[in-house]
């Protein structure tokens, strides 16, 4: 008897909202939403910076040093493409997918998979192939975020680039990464890679 009374009372409490409830819940929900969502995105963006990438010595001592000699690091006009510009998709859903995939890299960090330049070179080819495939599959989207084909002025290009861009690229036969490999990092052994001798 006392049991069913308790349930009844509880039900009554649950059924009628408290006077303060609606506004409070809305306000709480709104602010915590702002805090959590904002915090999440801020945290996410913080991991999307060059400083974050090279806080790992694996990145700083290997790929970052190679990249420093290339045009995407230093050039006449000072416009740069940093690590995430090429390696993390811009669009939100794709970015989250890539970020989750990248959690595997944390495992690599803990187990010291590429923690010396020698180990890095040993695994360079498999890592390069993985990244080439990713770019091939998304039609070199990260290149195209800046290098928009629609606005390329062929008359400003060299003869060799013009021929390639006007034929292979325009028809969709090839995508940027098919030819522009090793533009930011040292190439692995290119044996059996298409287009290389």
């Amino acid at each position, binding site marked *: 008897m006392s049991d069913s009374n308790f349930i009844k009372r509880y039900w009554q409490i649950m059924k009628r909202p408290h006077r303060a409830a609606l506004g409070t819940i809305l306000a709480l929900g709104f602010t915590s939403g702002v805090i959590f969502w904002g915090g999440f995105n801020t945290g996410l963006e913080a991991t999307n910076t060059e400083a974050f990438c090279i806080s790992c010595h694996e990145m700083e001592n290997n790929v970052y040093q190679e990249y420093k000699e290339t045009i995407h690091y230093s050039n006449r006009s000072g416009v740069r493409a940093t690590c995430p510009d090429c390696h993390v998709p811009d669009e939100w859903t794709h970015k989250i997918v890539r970020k989750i995939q990248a959690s595997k890299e944390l495992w690599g960090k803990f187990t010291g998979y590429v923690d010396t330049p020698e180990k890095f070179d040993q695994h360079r080819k498999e890592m390069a192939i993985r990244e080439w495939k990713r770019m091939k599959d998304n039609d070199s989207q990260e290149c195209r975020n800046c290098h928009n084909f629609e606005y390329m002025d062929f008359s400003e290009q060299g003869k060799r680039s013009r021929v390639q861009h006007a034929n292979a690229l325009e028809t969709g036969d090839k995508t940027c990464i098919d030819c522009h490999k090793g533009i930011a990092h*040292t190439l692995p052994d290119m044996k059996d890679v298409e287009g290389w001798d």
Partner: protein
Amino acid sequence: MKKLIYAITAAVMLSILLPKAQSEDLKDNGGVISLRGQAQLFEQDKAEDMKRVQRDQSPIARDYLHQPPLIPHQTRNYKINTNSNKCLSCHSWKNYRKSGATKISMTHFETRDRQQLSDVSPRRYFCTQCHVTQADAEPLIANDFKPVEELSGGK
């Protein structure tokens, strides 16, 4: 005894003065004008402006027999090492038809003992040892070199 003292003093003086005199001599270029200009050896000459490598052109005529053909395009950041050879990705026998580039000559497949190999000989692998890009620059030293008429068409 006095003589000995004179001799020692003279030797000491010489050992101090002579090397100095010699190093003064070494600093003087003796009026020679070389590729580095008229700068004295101890001076830092003004650095030349960087020359811009010319963009894509047609093949450049050769000036003498067995001249390695010049590179008529830019090659910035092209890597040639044990892992990859960017030049061969267009100029190799495998790729030249597709790229429309000049193919490397058969001589590149020979060892120095004229032994024929099935791939580019290691001694001919490093393209830029012989083939060089071109900049629009004045000759460093004026000269009246004329190309072989047979090669240049008398130009």
